[in-house]
């Protein structure tokens, strides 16, 4: 089975622009989470979606938003980009939302903001 896929692989934007990142979960998984990994740091939780509803949100500004579609794929949107938004954005899927549900990560989207 295919793993978690993310697109695009790399993205370069300028300050003030908007960006949309996409994620397709493993077949059968209903939950998608988004994490931001800044260079030299561990991933930080941004959002979790389950059955198209937001289940949790990390400590990120309102410029960050996401949604989940009926096929369980997801998009992460970031508005008014700042230099500090440059990071690897990771998507993880899991079957459910419990702590025992293993989260499987995609390869990430590398966002560079100039």
């Amino acid at each position, binding site marked *: 089975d295919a793993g*978690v896929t993310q697109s695009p692989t790399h993205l370069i934007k300028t300050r003030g622009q908007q960006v949309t990142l996409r994620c397709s979960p493993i077949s059968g998984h209903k939950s998608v989470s988004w994490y931001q990994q800044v260079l030299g*740091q*561990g991933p*930080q*939780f941004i959002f979790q979606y389950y059955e198209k509803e937001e*289940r949790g949100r990390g400590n990120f500004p309102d410029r960050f938003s996401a949604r989940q579609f009926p096929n369980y794929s997801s998009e992460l949107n970031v508005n008014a980009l700042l230099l500090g938004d440059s990071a690897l954005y990771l998507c993880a899927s899991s079957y459910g939302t419990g*702590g*025992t549900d293993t989260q499987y990560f*995609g*390869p990430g989207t590398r966002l560079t903001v100039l």
Partner: protein
Amino acid sequence: AQSVTQLDSQVPVFEEAPVELRCNYSSSVSVYLFWYVQYPNQGLQLLLKYLSGSTLVKSINGFEAEFNKSQTSFHLRKPSVHISDTAEYFCAVSPRSGGSNYKLTFGKGTLLTVNP
């Protein structure tokens, strides 16, 4: 809230030597514990996890970790490393109960470099 401290940012070792990557956590509630590995230019892969039962958990590629509740630690060990083990290793926790038990909290990572 939870926090994770990985005590070493970089660990260089020679091939076939033993290695220990240290992880301590802080949490007001019980947690599940995880080790993830990230190879260059790739996403995270689950290496092993502790959910319940035996405090010693093992991966298929020779790594093991032991949950020590009194010391709030979950150190990762391998008795003999290979060049291919070169990667960044992340320790993570998630709460066992409450509304946010899906949320993984990661440490800053330990870069393991295995030299010939």
